[in-house]
C-alpha cells in the first residue's frame, strides 16, 4: 500500500530478470561510454535517461558526488562515473547525459559521456572480470565483462557501485578513502 509505484516497478522488474536468466534467455543492458571505455547496466535498473542539467553542489564530499538535481520534485544525487573511476571530474557539456537508476528504494543519477547501445546479453556471454589485485580495482561493483563486436563492455553492479553512499550515518571519511582507492590507477 505504502510502496511507491516506482519501487513496485523495480520489484517486478527484478523478479522478471530472474525468470529470464533462469530460462537462459537474454538480459538487456544499457551501455554508455565514459571516455574510451564502455560500461553497461541492467536495463531494469534504469528509470530514465536525461540530458545534463546543472547540479547544485553538496558540500564536503568527494568529487565524484557531483551534487543534487531536481527530478520532478524529488531530489536525487548525481555521481560522476569518470571521477568515480579516477579519471578526474567530468567537464560537462550539453551532450552529457545522466542515467537515472533505481537502487532499492533510492533513486540516483550517473553522469556519463553518452549512451551507446542497448545490448541483449545471455548469461553465458558474460565473462568474469580478470583476476586483479583488489588494491588495483575494487572488483565488487563489476558484475562481468562482455564483448560486443570488438568492444569490451564492463557490466556494472549498480547496487554495489555507490554502496558506500547508502548509509545515512555513514562516515564521510570512509567514502573519501574509497574514492582515493578508486583513484589509484
Amino acid at each position: 500500500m505504502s510502496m511507491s509505484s516506482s519501487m513496485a516497478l523495480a520489484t517486478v522488474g527484478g523478479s522478471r530478470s530472474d525468470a529470464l536468466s533462469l530460462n537462459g534467455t537474454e538480459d538487456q543492458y544499457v551501455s554508455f561510454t565514459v571516455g574510451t571505455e564502455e560500461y553497461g547496466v541492467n536495463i531494469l535498473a534504469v528509470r530514465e535517461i536525461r540530458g545534463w542539467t546543472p547540479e547544485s553542489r553538496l558540500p564536503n564530499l568527494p568529487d565524484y558526488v557531483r551534487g543534487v538535481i531536481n527530478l520532478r520534485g524529488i531530489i536525487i544525487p548525481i555521481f560522476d562515473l569518470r571521477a568515480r573511476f579516477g579519471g578526474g571530474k567530468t567537464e560537462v557539456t550539453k551532450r552529457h547525459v545522466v542515467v537515472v537508476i533505481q537502487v532499492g528504494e533510492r533513486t540516483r543519477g550517473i553522469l556519463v559521456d553518452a549512451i551507446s547501445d542497448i545490448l541483449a546479453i545471455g548469461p553465458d556471454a558474460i565473462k568474469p572480470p580478470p583476476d586483479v589485485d583488489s588494491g588495483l580495482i575494487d572488483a565488487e561493483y563489476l558484475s562481468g565483462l562482455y564483448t560486443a563486436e570488438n568492444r569490451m563492455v564492463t557490466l556494472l553492479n549498480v547496487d554495489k557501485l555507490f554502496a558506500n553512499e547508502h548509509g545515512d550515518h555513514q562516515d564521510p571519511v570512509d567514502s573519501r578513502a574509497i574514492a582515493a582507492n578508486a583513484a589509484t590507477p
Partner: protein
Amino acid sequence: MDDLSRFKQTYFDESAELMAVAEAGLLRLSPGDVDMDEVNAIFRAVHSIKGGAGAFGFSELVAFSHEFETVMDELRNGAIPVTTDLIDTLIRANDLLGQLLGCAGDEIDPPPGLTDDTVAALRHALAANRTGDPPQPVAESAAPPASATPDDEDDEAGIFGDALAAIHAARADDDPPGTGSGTADRVRWTIRFRPKSDLLLSGNEPAYMLRALRRLGEADIHCHLDDLPALADLDAELLHLSWTITLTADASVGRDRIDDVFEFVADDCDLQISADAPLPAVVEPSAPAASAAPPPPARTEPSAVPGPPAAQTTTTPATTSPATAKSDGAKTDGPAKPRSGNSGGDHGGLTTHTIRVDLDKIDRLVNMVGEMVITQAMIAEHLRDLPPGQFQELQEGLEQLAQHTRELRESVMSIRAQPVSSVFSRMPRLVRECATMTGKEVLLATSGENTEVDKTVVENLVDPLTHMIRNSIDHGLEGPEERERIGKPRAGTVHLSAQHRSGRIVIEVTDDGRGINRAKVLSKAIEKGLVQPGASLTDEEIDNLIFLPGFSTADQVSNLSGRGVGMDVVRRNISALGGRIGVYSTPGEGSRFVLSLPLTLAVLDGMVISVGEERFVLPLTNIVESLRPKPVDLHGLVNKCDVMMARGEYVRLVYLHRLFGIPKAVDDATRGLVVLVETEDGSRLGLVVDEVLGQQQVVIKSLESNFRRLDGVAAATILGDGRVALILDVAGLREMSRHSGDSDRARPTATPTPALAGPSPRQRQTV
C-alpha cells in the same frame, strides 16, 4: 484473508476512536455529577470494541472488555454509585483495553496476568457497591445478578454483536409479563421491525431482539416471509425476514425501553414503533407508515386496514431515538458510528460527512501541490525575462494561476490539519495524575481546542506540552495549604490555550502559581556553572535560564520533574519543529509559557542567500539581522578566527564558502554580507555570505530519501528556477565551524575541510 486483515485495520482504527471517546468520557465523570449520556457513550464504546473483538476472535479482549462493560452497565443502570476509586479503576481498565488492542494489533499474546488486577478491581467495585442501597428506583428490578455472572448468552452476544444490552434490558424486567396488573395499565405497542438484508453481516442477531421484546411483555410476533427468495437464490448470509410484533406491556415499560432493544441496529433497519390504546388484537400487516415514513419498498401490502391511529408513530431510519440522539450530542463530532440527524434518503443513517483516507494519499497530494507551486514560480520567473507590455494576457493568466495555486495549497494543507484538541484532550488525565502525585489541587482550563494545525505538528506537540504542564504543576503551583495562606483559592489553575496568530499557532500554558523564583534560579545557575558569578542578568534572561540543559530548581528530584531534563528538551523539540518558546513570569502571580509553531512542517519561511554560484536557504526563525560590516568592526581572534562587533557584542564569523568549500565566493566580509543568526540555545554567529537574495516560502524536501544526511544541512528545497538549494542547519554549521577554526583562516577552496574528520571531543560534549 486479505479482506479480513483489511477489516481488522478498520476495526483497530475505529477502536482507537472509541477508546478516545471512552477516555474523554471517563475523565469527565466525577462523583456526584454523573451525566448519563456520558456513561452511555462509554458503555457503547466498550461494547463496540468487545463486539468487534468477538468477531475477530480476540478472546482476551472479549473477556476483559466484558468485565469492563459489566461495570459500565451497572453504572448506567444506576446500580452502583460513581466514586473516585471507581473512576480510577475504570480509567485503568480503559488503558488496559488499549494495551490489549495493541497486542491484538501486533498479533502477539498479551503477557499473562496482565488484566488480573484490574479485573479483580472491577469485580470488587461491583461486589462492594451492589450491597449499597440502590440510589435510583430503576435499580430495584435490576436486583437479579445481571452481569456479574456472565452466561452463555452474554458470551454469544459478545460474538454476535450487540444484543447484550437488549438482554440486560430484558432481564431487568424479568417479571412484568407474569405480574399482569390489569389491562387498564397496559399499553399495546405495534412494532414493525424490518432489518436491512445485511444486518447479520454486522454481527447482529434479530432473535435476541425479539427475545428481549418478549421479556418486556406479551409479544405476539409475526414473521413475514414475503421477501424470501426461492431456495436456489437464497443467500445464506443475508436476512430476508421482517417482523411485526404486537407487544402488550406494562405502562411502566416506556418507549425508551423498546428503543433500547433496537439501539444497536437503529441504523440498519426500518423500525416503526407505535403505541395505541388497548384495542382488539390486530392485524398482521401493520400500519403503513405515517407521513414521514418512507414507504417500505419491496414489501407491498398497502393494507386496507389503516392500522391503529399512529399515536406516537416515528420512523427510525436515520433519525435516532431520543436517548441515542442525546448521547450522540455529547460525543460531539467524530462519532465512530455516524448517526447524523438528517433523514435525507432512506439510507438508514449511512450518510456520513467524513471519510477515512490513507495518509499516504494525502501526502502524495501535498507533494504534487508542492510541485505545482514550484512549476508556477518557474513560469513566473521565465515570464519576467519576456519584453514587458507584450504579453499582457499571459501575465494576467499567470497571476490567476498563482492565486489558484495558493488556494489549492491552503486547501490541501487544511486536509492534513487537525484540531489540537487531540493533544489537549490528553492533558486532563496528566493533570489528574500530577495532582495526585504532588498532593496539589489543580484545575485545568483549556481554550481554543479547535485550532487546527498540521498533523505532524500536532503529533509533535504531545511531549513538549506534557513537560510544560508537569513543570507548571510541580514547580509553579503551590500546595493547597500554602495557597490558602496567601489568599489564593485552594486549587491552582493551569490554563492551556491555542490560537492562530499571523500564520503560526501560538500555544500558551499559564499557571497562577508562585512564578519563577529568580533569586533561586540565578543561584542555581551559578552553582551549576551555567552562569558566571557576578554576571548581571535581566529578569527576562534569568527566566530563560530554565531552558538551559541540566538546569533544575527542584530541591529534590521528584517523580514528576526535577531531573534537569525537561525544559531544555522542550525547547529542543520545539525548535526542531521550527518554533520558539518563551516564558513570562510574575513572582507570586504565576508564569506563562508561550509556544509559537509553524502551521505546517511541509513549508518553511526562508531567506535565500547566495555564496559563489550556489544558493542556500536559511530558516527565517534563525535570522536576527543581516548587515555589511565596516572594516573597523572586524577583528582577528588569536589569529584563529574572525570576530565582529555587532550591537555591542562580539560574534564569531563563519565563512560559509570556506566551510563548504565553495569556489568563486566573496572572501571579504566587508564586501559581502554578514547574516547574524541565532541557534535555539541563543548563541549567535555571523555567517558571511555573498548576497541576500530575498525571503521566500520554500517546500521542504528530503535529501536523505535518495542520499544521506549532510553536516550543516537540514534539508533541501527546489527554487523557482527548478534548481535545488540546500536548507542550512545553523546549529550544525556552528558545530562544524567550531572545530575547524584553523581552516577558516587558511583558505582551502574546494577541498574537504577537516571539519568532517570525525567528532572532536568537544563536539561530543556538546551534542
